């Protein structure tokens, strides 16, 4: 009682002022997050404007990329980005699904944590490490053992054959997709594991009670329940794959052209920027590279935003049911 009475009006005013200051500082920092997104968008648009104004729509429809004649079209990098990411997801999603199942439904308790952490550590390895590993270890292996086989066995087939023809370069679209797949596995499997863990035990137990096997419970109870979250996880991984730079730069071969064969060198948006930006001379060249960056930001933003919205909705549902 005494202490309360002892607080002077001056002291109270000081407290209120600090409260306002602190609140303002935290709010300001939080708003800075929004400002950052706005700033990134704005600066990319401003930087990309000269190229976009000059080439208009042809910037994204032409394959040509020639610094000598100052002609730039983004089709080859766009193609490379989409194809490598798509192939990477094709390889990574089944493996990630398997890992998530293993970690949630199969692994004994003592194994769960070490294996889970080991997979997560795969995500902590910097992308440049994947790059040199891909270039010096994976690419030679693919060139010597995997690609000749693909060319011999799949090359002569109708329809899909043309994707597997030509010499085995080692580096190229397929190798980049392979490295990307390894890189996104930890992200996708971590999200899948987390959403699998939100499935109420009662649901699974009802499945087992009806005599279902473990796999039947997973496929008919866990997966339908966790579907939105799984798609969210896949999209998150896709966002990673689309924007991944260094690892791809090492192994893609950096050729601004669209080859039918997946074994041929290509390029991606991020690899083109990483390779050429520091050396680009001329405003149009630089601006074209920034325009590539703006395109990449647009694509990844849409994918990541969709992923986050799905996962958010799932979180809300989990909270609602709890």
């Amino acid at each position, binding site marked *: 009682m005494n202490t309360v009475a002892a607080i002077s009006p001056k002291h109270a005013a000081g*407290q*209120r002022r600090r*409260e306002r200051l*602190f*609140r303002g500082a*935290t*709010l300001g*920092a*939080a708003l*800075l*997050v*929004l400002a*950052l*997104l706005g700033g*990134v968008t704005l*600066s*990319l648009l401003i930087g990309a404007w000269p190229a976009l104004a000059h080439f208009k729509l042809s910037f994204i429809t032409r394959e040509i990329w020639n610094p000598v004649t100052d002609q730039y079209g983004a089709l080859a990098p766009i193609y490379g980005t989409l194809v490598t990411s798509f192939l990477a997801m094709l390889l990574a999603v089944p493996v*990630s*699904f*398997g*890992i998530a*199942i*293993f*970690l949630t439904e*199969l692994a004994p308790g003592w194994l769960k944590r070490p*294996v889970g952490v*080991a997979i997560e*550590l*795969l995500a*902590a*390895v*910097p*992308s*440049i*490490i994947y*790059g*040199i*590993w891909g*270039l*010096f270890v994976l690419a030679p292996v693919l060139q010597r053992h995997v690609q000749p086989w693909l060319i011999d066995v799949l090359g002569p087939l109708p329809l899909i054959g043309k994707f597997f023809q030509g010499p085995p370069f080692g580096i190229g679209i397929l190798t980049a997709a392979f490295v990307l797949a390894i890189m996104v*596995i*930890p992200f996708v499997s971590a999200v899948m594991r987390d959403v699998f863990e939100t499935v109420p035990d009662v649901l699974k137990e009802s499945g087992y009670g009806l005599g279902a*096997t*473990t*796999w*039947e419970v*997973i496929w008919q109870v866990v997966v339908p329940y966790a579907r939105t979250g799984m798609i969210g996880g896949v999209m998150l991984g896709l*966002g990673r794959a689309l*924007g991944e*730079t260094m690892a791809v730069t*090492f192994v893609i071969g950096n050729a601004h052209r669209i080859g039918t064969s997946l074994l041929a060198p290509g390029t991606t948006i*991020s690899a083109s*920027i990483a390779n050429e*930006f*520091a050396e680009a001379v001329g405003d149009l060249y630089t601006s074209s590279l920034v325009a590539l*960056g703006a395109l*990449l930001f647009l694509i*990844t933003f849409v994918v*990541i935003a969709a992923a*986050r919205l799905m996962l958010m909705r799932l979180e809300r549902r989990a909270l609602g049911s709890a």
Partner: protein
Amino acid sequence: MSSRRTLRKLTNVVALVLSGIATAIGLFFLAAILWTLVKNGVAGLSVALFTQMTPPPGSAGGLLNAIYGSVVMTVIGILIGGPIGMLAGTYLAEYGRTARISALIRFVNDVLLSAPSIIIGLFVYELLVVRMGHFSAIAGAVALAIIAMPVIVRTTEDMLNLVPQGMKDASTAMGAYTWRTVTSVIYPAARSGIVTGLLLAVARISGETAPLLFTALNNQFWSSNLGAPMANLPVVIFQFALSPYPNWQQLAWSGALIITVSILVLSIAARIAVSSFTKGRH
């Protein structure tokens, strides 16, 4: 009937074995990458690595300037991104927990968390490098800060939310303003959790290469000038690994080993810290 039963059991076994194989594949690649780094990197580990500058092709040298540059830029990056991230996380967890703008901020923060780092590099290039007219260490540090910030915002919010409501209520009941409650009660209670977030952010940015390519660039020599280009491990690894010179390639492998081991140690330390922090709070 019994053949159908056999089929179901068989499907079950096949599916479960496949999921085990999938896990083995994941672990195999982690092991393969680490093995490659150790095999190629250990040969180059020596005192000279930590005491000499990056050499010209063909002569002996070390990575001292690159290691120094990486440490400096990472530290400045965290010094900028850390406090801002912590304050923003504090707003989301304490002041604006239910505010409508908080949902938007959380969403944007999550998007930034997964945004390609090379985009951040382009942004800082337009923001700082173009204005200053040249590449600089400070531009590199700002790029790293922008990448670290979303990580810290997220972990700070999560960790502050783990502090029991009763502690906050007790402080408020004693007449403390929120700023007092936050700084004297909540921050101390969540300290190890917040530190974990900072560690994770350090682990995240210390291997980043793409955003440094056109902000800090690289420097063959010793430089402690923040306004000038500065050597850093990732970009040196990038340049040296792709060079045709054996001594540069050896340095690249050793650099790769150093950086990966440090990051893995940091990540494991962060996990241990966070598990001892969250234990008993759920």
